[in-house]
């Protein structure tokens, strides 16, 4: 058995520590070690965005980050998006706009959309589309996702 690495990190604001193999991805750590299965694996090679998380505020594919790399860092996942019982405005707008069908892409898209709105509270349609280009959705044709993000941005600007 290979020596495992002890990693201390913050996940959705909670201090967490875990043991992982040196070559184990953050995605695998989240799903298999921390049993946080909201972050999805669609490809494991950075192509689909279903595994999107933020690490120190940066949007990344957790399948392309090693567990050992997040030592001392802050990781945010879909599980941390709602504030207690209150859904994040993006989550609410995705529901209202029917911006999800099968939903496998939804956690990644929500995490990515939040990262967008944190940087750019008033994105154009084109900016939304390009920002979300790393998140594949095969069901919706993106139409309602783009609308939901724009609508959430509008609402978040108003409060």
């Amino acid at each position: 058995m290979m020596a495992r690495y002890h990693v201390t990190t913050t996940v959705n604001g909670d201090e967490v520590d875990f043991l992982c193999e040196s070559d184990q991805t953050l995605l695998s750590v989240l799903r298999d070690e921390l049993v946080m299965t909201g972050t999805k694996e669609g490809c494991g090679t950075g192509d689909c965005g279903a595994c999107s998380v933020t690490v120190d505020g940066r949007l990344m594919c957790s399948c392309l980050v090693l567990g050992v790399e997040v030592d001392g860092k802050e990781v945010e996942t879909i599980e941390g998006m709602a504030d207690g019982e209150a859904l994040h405005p993006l989550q609410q707008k995705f529901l209202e706009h029917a911006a999800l069908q099968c939903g496998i892409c939804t956690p990644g898209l929500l995490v990515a959309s939040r990262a967008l709105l944190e940087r750019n509270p008033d994105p154009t349609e084109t900016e939304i589309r390009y920002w979300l280009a790393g998140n594949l959705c095969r069901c919706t044709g993106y139409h309602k996702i783009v609308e939901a993000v724009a609508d959430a941005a509008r609402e978040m600007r108003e409060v």
Partner: protein
Amino acid sequence: MATMLKYEDKDLKVVGTRPIRPDGVDKVTGRARYGADVNLPGQIYGRVVRSPHAHARVLAIRTDKAEALKGVKAVVTRDDFPEMPVEYAAAGELIVNFRDVTRNMMAREKVLYDGHPVAAVAATSEAIARRAARLIEVDYEVLPHVIDPVEAMADDAPLLHEEQMTEGLDPAPEKPSNLAKVVSFAKGDVEQGFAEADLVIEREFNTKPVHQGYIEPQASIASYTEDGQVELYTATQGHFVIRAQCAKLLQMDISKIRVIPTELGGGFGGKNNVYLEPLAIVMSKKSNRPVKMTMSREDVFRSTGPTSGAHTRIKIGCRKDGRITAAEAELDFQAGAFAGSSVPMAAMCTFTRYDLDNVRVRGNDITVNRPKVAAYRAPGAPISIFGVESILDEMSRELGIDPIEIRLKNAARQGTQTYYGPTFGPIGYEETLNRARQHPHLQEKLGPDQGRGIATGFWFNIGKETTTTLNVNEDGSVTVILGTIDVAGGSRAAMAMMVAEELGIDVDKVRPQIGDTQTLGFNFVTAGSRGTFASGIAVTVAARKAIDVMRERAAQMWDVPVDGVVWEDGHARPASSNVGEFEPLSIVEIARKSGMTGGPIAGHAEITAEGAGPGFGTHIVDVEVDRRTGLVKILRYTVIQDTGKAIHPAYVEGQFQGGAVQGIGWALNEEYIYDADGRLQNPGFLDYRVPVASDVPFIGTDIVEVPNPNHPYGVRGIGEVPIIPPIAAISNAIHDAIGIRLREQPMSPPKVLKAIREASNGAG
């Protein structure tokens, strides 16, 4: 029992509104559990060893080194599965043959495609399973291979199945070939029809295999217990069909296999078949541990069903006024490694949008060295109509008739008899064309190198076996157990809405849930756009039965005959003042007292739904072509489709938009690329190019509602039609933009640029 509930035109409170879907919150918070999210105590991890060859005889498989590795708990090969005789069964829209199913999940005599499973291992960690997989040694005798359907029909083509004699040929062939089956349809006198034509156009078209591209890879976890019971969690469109297939392949009783469907991360027809499930079950039996198996994305592309690539020849004759006098098609479809492509359906869809007297269609089902095809949304139809809609566009230009007019002139309508048999009842094809004619999209101005294309599509839609149980709980809230998987279109929401409408209660009071195989009777897979249609009938039947029970209970409470009680707005009321003066009883009041009036209240339905209404759609697309690079950009897109009735309009729009964008990907960039050795070159989302958000514009939608008379709310299937027209519509738009007609999919930049070069060389 075949159940027919007729359409009733009535005032609706819930149906037609846009409530939030019941599965929504779980999906936006990450709680929803998909195939790979299920874990069982003590689970181990399975991995499949796959063929690196497109075609080879499997001489020997040595597993001893893998078995000796610490942590390895089970290894399986062909020797662990019984031989299966030829026996056919329906799975989704396609028919499977168990002799082939068992060979597809685990190769026997030969491997027939790159990615074909030859062995599987299960070990205490994924890393050990990976290592063990590499220790399995397979001796192959590599054979010549063939992928192109036309080449596969040549006399000297490498033969996949030495015993395969073409079905459907008269006289029967004397020697085996890769042509597995021929299907033919004919009506009228085609020769006579062509003789009467003023204009006859005949063209050939080619398309490549494309993948459904669901974002969730296949994932299953199986637990086999010492008393021979199986618990199987799997991501599928049809848990009852998976159960039936596993039972057959493993020679077990159906009752011993409990299949629990997980949330489904997309399927589009591709998750109707067994791949990992039987392997996981047998390895669980061997190891006495639950075995979890997930495919990598590469596995998904290499070994799960894409759709057929095809070569088609289409010939149409028409008079000067645009009226078609004869139409003929020959369709060569790749079946993949085993017979059974979607060519029968493609053949039936080819000309069905039109009212024709003289038609002949022949479909060839051809085995080639690529993964066995699976259904993909309207299986085969986008491929076969490509050529037809392209030629109609050509004819409309040649004759100076507007492309919508020429279609209207020939449009199928109520009373049109199809060339494969049935006569249409009320259908909305003409209505979609009339709407297209009025559509503001047509007023948008086009710039240089921009063009507009139109194409139309038809899909049968299906009904089939469906069951449901509806329980009125003690507090008057309602749970509905459904047997059809919510393939993501929002069928749970639609079911809850129909139940709420029937019962006269708030949709929020109805909680729908998908039942596992032990909770309900058999349900066919969710495919062919049948979910909302068939389960919609089932829940309506169940709700009406529950209403009958509640009327009886109210009658008891009032001590009046049951005929004296009617159900209105969620209440039992006296049918007339003759019955007596009673305060209406709400569902809550009746439910609360149910223990004293005869026990819990429920309604069931076990039906075979019939009369799924055919669906038609018309698409309009604007493109811009970069003449110097061949890049085609989609500028505008509009989908107009008859849905019968949109139960939840937002989900209907979602189906239109999602289907159209899949069709755009298919038209422009998606394709399986093989190297000279028959190995798949692009088994990943970076080189298998599905559209990303920035590739497409907003997709306009226009819902036409011509009610289906055979559904209580008038529903037709809606999921398939939207993927049918895009390839043809985009090809027509490219022609409009630059005057060049592409008859080959994908219309990717190298192909478009080449066509531009050839056209300019030809001209100059």
